[in-house]
Structures are given as structure tokens and as C-alpha cells.
């Protein structure tokens, strides 16, 4: 990247002249006929002419060459580019022509007039060695416009022809050599610039900025930082240094300092394109890029950035257009070529990829930056295996491409190849410790080292030791259940072992998944062979549902080599939730009716946009919901076999419309029409009235977790006549207004008007019997019955609620305890499992579980429950250990009984219950020994 040098060359002579000119002109202009001497005007030896303004005659002031140069520089600095061009063009004197040409060239370049910029400066370059600055400027323009070979030739001449080539020349030469893949030679130039600085021969702010750039290119980031600071200190108006410094910060993920720098530059010159483009990479991208392109519609960096933005937002065609525009200006833009190649690779268009590679090879054989860019994009789009391949090529070309090492390491980890992945990340970190992503990912390895590794037949799981104790007993059977179920259903066996990593801290989960500590509302991610999850100890949602959802992804992604579109993958995983357990998954209710009434449904062909274009959690949640609806439609109308057939289509490289035609024998428009008809039928069946004033009815979350009914929650806060009046009016007008009935029920409950409350709540319940939001009619009814002392009715309503509410462990526990008390062990077992599916970290659940185990005489289960309680129940460890020891004893685990009770007695030697267990354990051990030893 080349930035026009708009720093002002500053000499004391010119400063004095400028002051003199301004004062003289002002005074003369005001007092044109005055003959009074002006003693503070410093009249240097250099002659200059000055024409005075005669206000009476209104003749324009003609400024000298120096004036125009100065003015031009000032205008260029402040962003008045046309004015600057005019000023530079006004310079006639030969002595100043080269400087004027440089200024003119820079002003033209920054406004996208590259040909003119080249022409302006080329005329000054007869012998490059004699005009190093002009030649360097010309070379920068050549590089900017894809003529790197000519740039290289020019700069080589300058460097060869000068004993001490300008610092700028050395660094720009290095950049060109870098671009053309001559890495060692580039290093020589950078080192020469650094050596010049070390010798104390670099004074100028612009030159110090170039030395900083050289240090950056040599991976000497601390030095680069210090040098940029020095450059700016020498001249706070050095926009190039300010912006390059910001770029350095941004490369190291320090957006805060980058933004500061860009803003400083923009304060000086709000039309400075490099700073505008830099800001676009931090925030408000479209706004800043628009501003940048307004200044220069041919700004390659802005066009590249815009193109990348569109591509990442899945607007490939728009993105391609911008990238093509960038290439039209600079056919050697590695960023643009790499991005287009990545798109070709994603779409499996290898001829297009090869053509782009050939273009790169013409000027930079096997460019490391090219392959690293392709790898990065592929990795971010779930094509991890291919990403690894391209990252390896990048490193083969340039082993010092630390970014490529990070990309390789990160993608190897996503494939479960952790040892090699870690090696590359460590290498990257050792050489570039500023890369936040690298250091974050390595820190997670440290976390994982302290984790336990557990295995089942098909899964390998990393989790904390606490989770290993508490969660694993319930996770292990679920994993194998999912394997059996899904293998049979999808007739496909994924590669084993499937690696699952359960993180206690959300930040570790996020970093492991995407390299940075914020991942938004996601709670689980599947990479095909690897699944990452947040521990249930940190969540407040049904972890089993989440786990099952991610495991389905393992199947569908591997079935399609990660080519499945996101909408279908999420749709299937969401649909499978309810197939696994009737209380899991989404419901067709208010959300569906509202979506239809507000025409929120996207065409099936655009469903991925629902994810990429999501601006809020609510948007994202709806994207999941609609995807699930499509899958539900497919299975209901066409059968599961057709769904499986569609999945397998994605394993091939085909247009999506062709896939749908192959499976459903119709085009996507017809399919979409069928889907909408089906939706309308469903809406008619549901037959519920949705009022426009009601807000999110079933939660705005991603889908896992209690879905708060915001309108009903608000009703709990208000208890007034106006609300009741309003809602009564609503139900009078629309008897099937579910929300109105629910809110009335809530308000009346709070007023203890139970009979009327019950009426409205039962009405609401009848309208939407499978409502899963919170609070629900059944929940409020249970509270009413509890207040009335009607325990049986309360329990009945809780049971109804739990048919559709999978995230409430407290109600499940209540039902479990009631069942235990009634001696209904089957029910108790069921509700305890429901509670454990949400929060296995509640000691109360395990106490009830232990009680159930004892009632059933299931000594093994009792042991499991008491083992967990020892971990969870820290308030009375003596009792917890004594209970566990007793369970071990009952389960004939005599050694464990003995060792556990010893630990209890260590704290409480006089505890007679524990003493008794100890003696029994010892006695039984002795009896066993006697039996063994007898002939």
C-alpha cells in the first residue's frame, strides 16, 4: 500500500519567507499607499516579487512560486485537493518545478487521477538516480496501478545510482520487492533504511515514518510503534505516519488505538482516504467507505475493503463488482485477487481459481499473502480442510508469514488436530506476540491442559474436572444415544472420535471457536468434527437440547463435506430437537402468525440472508425459526427420505435450484409457493389473534433458553385498571387474543381475583395449548392453585407447562419430589431427568435422586448421586462424604467406602454415623479376605 506524502517539507528559510510574505501582503494590502516602514517584516536575501492589491482596481494577487508551493502543500494537507492541484500548477519557476510536480502528482493520485499523476512526475525523471524523490514517487504510482515490474526497475536504478538513496526510496523498493516475492532482497532494503536511522542520519518526520514502516515489515513491532510515535512527534501533521500507525494497531487487533489515530488524521484532513478506509474496517464501514470513494472513486484500498465487506456479508455479486473495480485500477492487487480466488474456491470453481492464481504468479509467484487470504476466508466459511491446505502453501512460500501460521493453527484445531495446530500458533505467537487472536487461542490451550479428557465409544470430551464429576454421568449416555439414533436415521457414520470441548468460561468458548472473546448469543458451535459448548454450569438453558442440536450438525456437515448452507443445517438441527424429546425445539404459535402477518418470511432461496443479515438476536432467532419451518414442511409434505436426499445433494457441486429440482422435481419458486401455502394452512389451524402492539412473544434469544414473553412480563409490573380495561376490550373484539387473555390472567392473579383469572388463563391455554413462552398460562394457573392451597391442581398445571417448557428445572424438581413422596418412582425418575437436563449443578436435584435410588434399591445410582453431591454440596462436607461412604458400602465398594468415610472422620472423628460405616466397611473387607483366603 502506498500513501501519498502530504507532509510539509519544512525549512527555516521557507518559514521565514512565508511569514514575511503573509505579513507583507496583509500590510500592503491594507495600506497599499503607505510608505511607513514595517519593521517586523523580515526581508531575506532571496528576491521575490509581490504584486499589491489595489482595491480600487480589483486586480488579483499573483503569488510567487514558493507561495504557491506552500499554499499547495497546505491545501493538500487539509484535503482541498483541487485547490492544491491549482496551486501546484501555478508554479512556473524551474527551481521549484520538481517540488511542484511532486505535489501535483500526490494531489492527483489521491483523487484517483493516476495517469495524470504519473504524467506529472514522469516528466521530471530523466535519470532516476538524479531525481530520486521524483523517481520514487513515480515508482509508488506504478506499484499502485499494477506496474510493479516498472517500479522495481526504476527504484533499482535509484538505489544503484546513489550512494545514500533517500530513506523513502529504500523502503518503497522493499515494498515492491516484497510484492514481487523477492523477500530476501526486500529485507536488505528495509535493513538499509533501519541502519540509516541507527546511524543518526534520519531527521525528517516523513523519513522516520518510512523507517517505522521498514521496522514493521521486519516484524520489529515495538520499534515500529516507537518510530511512528517519533514521526508524529516531529510533525503532528504527518498524515501518512498517523495512518500507517493506525494500520499497525489494527493489524494487531488494537482497534481502539487505531481509531484514535485515524480520527487524529481525519481531524487534520477529513478527506484523507487512507484514514477513512482504516476507520471503515473498525466501524460504520459503509459510511466511511462511501466518504472515501467520494474523494477517490478509484481508491484501491477502499474498493478492496468494500468488496471484502460485501463478500463476508454473503453479497458475493456486489463484492465481486468492487473487487473487479479494484483490479481495474491495480491489476496486481493481491487482496482483490485473493478474495476473488477464495470465492471461486468456495463455489468449487477451480478453473476460475487457477486463472486468478496465474495472474498472481505473473508478478509474485506462489504469493504467500494470496494463499493466506484464501485460507482465512475458507476457514471462516467452514471449509477447514481446504483452509489448511492453502495455509500450508502460504507458509511454504514464506515461513515467516505469521498470520498464515495463525490461520493454519486455528483451522487445524477446528479439525481436531490440536498438537500440530498448537505448534503453529506458538510459532506465530513467538514471532508476533501482538496478534490477539493467536494469544487468545493459546491461552485456551492452557485452559484445556487443566481439563479432564473422557471418552465413550465414539466421542472424546474435554471438560473441567468439576464438569467431569457432575455433568459427565449424564452426558455420556446422551452422546451414545444420539449416535445410535442419528446413525440409523441418516444412514451415515461420522469420523470418530468426535471431539467435544465444554468450557466453563464463555470467553474461552468464544476464543476457541472464533479466536476472540465475544461470540454473541451462541452457546454451542459445530465445526464438523469438533463441537464446542459452554458448560451448563454457566448456562441457564437445556444443555441436552443444545448438545443434541450440535451433534446433528456433526452428521449433516460431514455428510456434505461442510458444504451444506447454514439455513438448512440449522433448520435440521432445530427440527431434530423435537424429534429427540417432545418438550424440546420450537413451536408453531404466535411467532409464526406474526411472521406471516408482517410478511417476514424470506424466500427459501434467500434463507441464508436471514443469518448473515441479522441485526439483532431477534433476527437471528427468527432465521433459525424459519429454517426449522422449511425442514418441518419438507418432512411433513415429502417425507424424511426426501430431506435426507436433499442433504446428500449438497455434497455435490451444483446450483441450489438444480438440487431442489433433483429432489422435489420442481423449481425453487414452486417449492417456495408450496411452503407458503403450507404456512397459511398452519396459521389457519392455529387460529390465534396477534395484536400489533404486542412485542416478542416467545423470546428474542437464539432459541436455547427460556423465551420471555415480554408483553406478559410487563403485565406483571402493571396492576391497574387501565390495563384491565384495555385487555378486556381486546378480548371482546377478538376472543382468540391469546396475549390479552394471558395478561388479564396475570393482572387478576395479582389482585387475587382468582376465578376470573382462571377463566382467562384457561381460555389462553385452550387457544395455544403448546405455548412455550414465559410466563405461560399453565405457570400462572399453577401459582393461583398454590395460593389457593390446591396442591394437586398446581402440580397438574406444572406438568402441563413442562410438556412444552424445557428450560425450567425448578418445576421439574417440584414434581419429582411430589412423585417421590407419593411413591411414584417412575414419575419421580422422569421429572428428575427433566431437571438434570437443565441444571445438573443443583444439589437438591441430586438429593432427590439419591432418595429415589434408595427407594428403588439402585445402589449404583445412589453412589453416582452422592458422588456428585460431594462435589456440589460444600456446606456440609462431612455429611456429604458420610452419605457417599454409606452408598459405597451398600454398593459393595468397600475400599471406596472406607477411604471416603476416613475423610469425613478426619474432620469429625466423633461422628458416630461415620464411625459405624467405617467399622462395617472394615468388617466386610475382613470377611471378604477370609473367604478368599480359605481353601
Amino acid at each position: 500500500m502506498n500513501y501519498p506524502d502530504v507532509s510539509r517539507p519544512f525549512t527555516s528559510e521557507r518559514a521565514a519567507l512565508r511569514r514575511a510574505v503573509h505579513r507583507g501582503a496583509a500590510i500592503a494590502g491594507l495600506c497599499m499607499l503607505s510608505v511607513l516602514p514595517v519593521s517586523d517584516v523580515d526581508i531575506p536575501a532571496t528576491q521575490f516579487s509581490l504584486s499589491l492589491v489595489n482595491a480600487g482596481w480589483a486586480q488579483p494577487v499573483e503569488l510567487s512560486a514558493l507561495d504557491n508551493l506552500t499554499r499547495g502543500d497546505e491545501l493538500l494537507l487539509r484535503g482541498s485537493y483541487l485547490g492544491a492541484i491549482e496551486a501546484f500548477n501555478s508554479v512556473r519557476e524551474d527551481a521549484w518545478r520538481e517540488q511542484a510536480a511532486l505535489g501535483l502528482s500526490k494531489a492527483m493520485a489521491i483523487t484517483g487521477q493516476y495517469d495524470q499523476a504519473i504524467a506529472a512526475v514522469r516528466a521530471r525523471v530523466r535519470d532516476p538516480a538524479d531525481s530520486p524523490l521524483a523517481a520514487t514517487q513515480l515508482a509508488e504510482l506504478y506499484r499502485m496501478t499494477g506496474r510493479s515490474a516498472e517500479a522495481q526497475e526504476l527504484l533499482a536504478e535509484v538505489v544503484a545510482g546513489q550512494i545514500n538513496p533517500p530513506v523513502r526510496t529504500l523502503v518503497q523498493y522493499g515494498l515492491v520487492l516484497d510484492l514481487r516475492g523477492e523477500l530476501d532482497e526486500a529485507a536488505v532494503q528495509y535493513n538499509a533504511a533501519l541502519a540509516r536511522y541507527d546511524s543518526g542520519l534520519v531527521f525528517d518526520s516523513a523519513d522516520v515514518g518510512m523507517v517505522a514502516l521498514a521496522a514493521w515489515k521486519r516484524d520489529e513491532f515495538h520499534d515500529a510503534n516507537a518510530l511512528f510515535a517519533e514521526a508524529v512527534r516531529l510533525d503532528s501533521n504527518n498524515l501518512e505516519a498517523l495512518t500507517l500507525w493506525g494500520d499497525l494497531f489494527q493489524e494487531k487487533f488494537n482497534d481502539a488505538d487505531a481509531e484514535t489515530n485515524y480520527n487524529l488524521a481525519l481531524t487534520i484532513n477529513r478527506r484523507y482516504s487512507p484514514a477513512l478506509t482504516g476507520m471503515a474496517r473498525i466501524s460504520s464501514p459503509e459510511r466511511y467507505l462511501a466518504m472515501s470513494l467520494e474523494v477517490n472513486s478509484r481508491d484501491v484500498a477502499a474498493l478492496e475493503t468494500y468488496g471484502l465487506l460485501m463478500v463476508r456479508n454473503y453479497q458475493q455479486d456486489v463484492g465481486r463488482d468492487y473487487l473487479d473495480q479494484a483490479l481495474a485500477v491495480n491489476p496486481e492487487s493481491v487482496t482483490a485477487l485473493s478474495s476473488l480466488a477464495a470465492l471461486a474456491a468456495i463455489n468449487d470453481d477451480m478453473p476460475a481459481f487457477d486463472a486468478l492464481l496465474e495472474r498472481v504468479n505473473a508478478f509474485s509467484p506462489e504469493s504467500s499473502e494470496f494463499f493466506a487470504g484464501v485460507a482465512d476466508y475458507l476457514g471462516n466459511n467452514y471449509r477447514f480442510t481446504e483452509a489448511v491446505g492453502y495455509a500450508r502453501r502460504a507458509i511454504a512460500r514464506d515461513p515467516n508469514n505469521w498470520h498464515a501460521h495463525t490461520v493454519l493453527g486455528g483451522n487445524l484445531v477446528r479439525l481436531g488436530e490440536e498438537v500440530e495446530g498448537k505448534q503453529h500458533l506458538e510459532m506465530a505467537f513467538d514471532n508476533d506476540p501482538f496478534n490477539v487472536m493467536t494469544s487468545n487461542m493459546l491461552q485456551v490451550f492452557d485452559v484445556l491442559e487443566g481439563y479432564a479428557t473422557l471418552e465413550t465409544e465414539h466421542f472424546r470430551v474435554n471438560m473441567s474436572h468439576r464438569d467431569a464429576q457432575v455433568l459427565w454421568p449424564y452426558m455420556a449416555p446422551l452422546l451414545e444415544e444420539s449416535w445410535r439414533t442419528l446413525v440409523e436415521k441418516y444412514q451415515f457414520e461420522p469420523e470418530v472420535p468426535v471431539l467435544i470441548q465444554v468450557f466453563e468460561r464463555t470467553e474461552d468458548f468464544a476464543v476457541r471457536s472464533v479466536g476472540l472473546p465475544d461470540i454473541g448469543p451462541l452457546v454451542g458451535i459445530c465445526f464438523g468434527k469438533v463441537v464446542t459448548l459452554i458448560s451448563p454450569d454457566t448456562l441457564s438453558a437445556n444443555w441436552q437440547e443444545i448438545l443434541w442440536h450440535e451433534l446433528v450438525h456433526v452428521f449433516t456437515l460431514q455428510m456434505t463435506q461442510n458444504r451444506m448452507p447454514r439455513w438448512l443445517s440449522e433448520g435440521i438441527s432445530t427440527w431434530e430437537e423435537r424429534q429427540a424429546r417432545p418438550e424440546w425445539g420450537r413451536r408453531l404459535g404466535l411467532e409464526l402468525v406474526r411472521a406471516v402477518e408482517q410478511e417476514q418470511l424470506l424466500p427459501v432461496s434467500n434463507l441464508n440472508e436471514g443469518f448473515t443479515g441479522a441485526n439483532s438476536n431477534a433476527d437471528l432467532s427468527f432465521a433459525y425459526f424459519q429454517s426449522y419451518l422449511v425442514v418441518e414442511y419438507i418432512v411433513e409434505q415429502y417425507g424424511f427420505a426426501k430431506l435426507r436426499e436433499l442433504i446428500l445433494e449438497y455434497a455435490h457441486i451444483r446450483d441450489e435450484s438444480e438440487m431442489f429440482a433433483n429432489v422435489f422435481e420442481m423449481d425453487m419458486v414452486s417449492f417456495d409457493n408450496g411452503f407458503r401455502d403450507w404456512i397459511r394452512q398452519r396459521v389457519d389451524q392455529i387460529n390465534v389473534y396477534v395484536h400489533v402492539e404486542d412485542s416478542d412473544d416467545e423470546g428474542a434469544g437464539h432459541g436455547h433458553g427460556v423465551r420471555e414473553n415480554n408483553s406478559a412480563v410487563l403485565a406483571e409490573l402493571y396492576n391497574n385498571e387501565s390495563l384491565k380495561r384495555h385487555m378486556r376490550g381486546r378480548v371482546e373484539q377478538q376472543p382468540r387474543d391469546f396475549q390479552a387473555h394471558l395478561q388479564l390472567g396475570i393482572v387478576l392473579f395479582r389482585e387475587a381475583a382468582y376465578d376470573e383469572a382462571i377463566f382467562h388463563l384457561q381460555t389462553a391455554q385452550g387457544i395455544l395449548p403448546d405455548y412455550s413462552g414465559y410466563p405461560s398460562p399453565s405457570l400462572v394457573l399453577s401459582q393461583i392453585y398454590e395460593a389457593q392451597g390446591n396442591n394437586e391442581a398446581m402440580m397438574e398445571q406444572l406438568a402441563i407447562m413442562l410438556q412444552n417448557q424445557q428450560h425450567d428445572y425448578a418445576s421439574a424438581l417440584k414434581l419429582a419430589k411430589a412423585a417421590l413422596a407419593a411413591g411414584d418412582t417412575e414419575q419421580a425418575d422422569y421429572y428428575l431427568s427433566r431437571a438434570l437436563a437443565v441444571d445438573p449443578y443443583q444439589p437438591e436435584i441430586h438429593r432427590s435422586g439419591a432418595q429415589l435410588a434408595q427407594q428403588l434399591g439402585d445402589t449404583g445410582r445412589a453412589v453416582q448421586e452422592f458422588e456428585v453431591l460431594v462435589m456440589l454440596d460444600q456446606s456440609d462436607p462431612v455429611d456429604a462424604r458420610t452419605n457417599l461412604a454409606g452408598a459405597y458400602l451398600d454398593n459393595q465398594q468397600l475400599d471406596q467406602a472406607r477411604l471416603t468415610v476416613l475423610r469425613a472422620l478426619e474432620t469429625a472423628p466423633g461422628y458416630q454415623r461415620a464411625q459405624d460405616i467405617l467399622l462395617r466397611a472394615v468388617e466386610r473387607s475382613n470377611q471378604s479376605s477370609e473367604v478368599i483366603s480359605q481353601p
Partner: protein
Amino acid sequence: MMRSYQLLVVSMLVWCGSVLAQTEQQVIQSGSGSEDTPWFQQTPENNKFALIIVGASANDEIRVRLRGWATDLHASLLEDYGYASDAIELLIDDGSNVGNAASIVSGGSRVADIDAAIARIRSSSEAGDQLTVFLFGHGSSTFGDAKFNNVGPDMTGAELADMLSPLTGIDMVIFNTTSASFEFSRELSGLGRVVVSATRSAAERYDPLFGGFLVAALQQKRADIDRNARVSVLEAFNYASGQVAQWYRDQDRLSTENAVLDDSGDGLFSREPGTGQPDGLLAEIAYLNVISAGTQKTSAEALRLYAEMQSIEREIFILRNQKVNYLEEDYWNRLEALLIDLATRTRRYNELP
């Protein structure tokens, strides 16, 4: 000095082994050398007193809360710990307008009232008795002057220390549950005293939850972790501070209070007192229970067994306190042997008349 103090305390533990092995209902027989024990000797001849001070409250809600704690504590000391009603001084606010607590309130909690209450305790007590002081309310610690907020002029830690200083020979436990209690509590630190502070620095100036959890720990002897039917100061401290920490974890909040304990008299408080730590040895044997003479088995074998049980328990405590000096396997083998021995004798003892 620290080391010699610790050795002294260990020795004390040896002699106090006889005390630790008993249940509340049994007559405590003096172990050999127990007359040498300087602090917290547990005999039926020793009286126990409690001084509960409730200071001025910032608002009604806090007033209700603090009074609730104080009255619950008063009831628990009577019901669970065997205190005589006239051995408990309950001082609240200005002593009037105390609602349902009127029958149990001794007076106000002004400085003069506190002084008077301590004087009454002094006149009723003698060397070897035990006084436990509970402070509920607000504290402050600014400009180097730590205070308890009373009705009227606030009381400093130094002032309370002065009031308590005449109670020579009396074992003392002080629970200061106020905000910014640390500097105040430090003024009360002394040899042979156990001082608990709800906060560990003057910066912890929000009203702590520790007081409520302390009362909960004492009620129904919830904190009796070692199942000896008594609650030691260490057990109460561990239970309450554990509950405090759990509360903040459940609320997903950073803790604004950290309880600490000092029983070595050096004015340095520990967050996790206990075995192997500078603090905790005295707190472990400082019980709140009133020891009463109860029924005792009279057979010769029972008496012999009982003495043996005491001796074994003593050995267990010594071994436990020396845990770091053993290899793990060796430690558990030794401990197991002792515990089996103790359990066997206990079982036989229970069978005897």
C-alpha cells in the same frame, strides 16, 4: 514469638483433647494438666456470657434486619447453646421503641450503655468464664479512626478495647459484623482472644451479609461440621463466610466483603484460618456452647473406655495438625488406625451401662 505461641497452642490442644471428645451431656473430666490451659477451658463450672450490640440503623429496612438477626441470635443462644437468659445482654439503639423485643432487651447501645453492660458482666463473671460479643450495625473507618455507629457519639475500637480490658482471665470472642469493620476489629485483637471481622479492609464499606449468615450458622447448630454437637468459632466462621461467598456467586456479583479472623493476637487476620495457618487454632476450640454436667456412664469399663477415647481423639487432633509433616499414605494409614480404634471403643462404650 509466633512459633512459640503456636507450640503453646498445640500443647494446649493436647490438654484440651479431653474437652473436644465429649458430647454436651457428659461430664467433662479434666485431662491431666488441664489446669495449665490458659484459654477456653470447657467445664461446667465456667459460665458463658453474650453481649449483643445493635447500633444505629441507616433506615427502617436495615433496622428491621439487624433487629431480626439480634433477636434470632438471642433465641438461639437460649435454645441451642444453653445460655441463661440473664447471661445475655441485648442492647439495641436507644433501648426504647424495640417492639416485640422489649422483654429481652437490656438497654440501649449508646457507649455508656455498653460500658454499663460490660460492667454487669464483669461483676457476674470470674476467671475462666467466656464472653462472646456480637456487633451488628454500621461501621466506618475514615481518617484513621475506626468507629461503630451508635446512637449518640460513635464508639471507637480503642474505646471498646478499654471497656473490655478489665475482664482479665475471661475468654473472649468478638464477632464484628458491621461494614468497614476491619480497623475497629484490629483494635480488639489480643492474646487469647478470637476476633472475627466481616470485612478485611476499610474499603469494604457496604453493609455485609455476614451477620445474617453467622446467625444462620449458629441456629440449630448448622455449622457443626465435625458433628460433636457443638459449634466452634472456627466452624461458625467457615460456614458463614462460605455462605457469603456462595451468595455472591449465585448473584453473579463481585464480593464486596471478605470475612477474616484473628486468634493469634498479632492483629493480622486470616481469610482462611485453620490447620497449618497462622490463625484458627484457638477458634477451633473456642465453643459457644454452655457446658453442662450431664449423665455419665458409671461402670469401670465405661470410664476406662472413655478415657481411652479421649486419649485417641487427642492423638487424632495432633496427627491432623501435623499432616504436612507426613507422607500422604503414611498419614492416612496412621489416621485410619486411630479412627478404627476410636470407633471400636465408642461402639463398645455405647453398649455399656
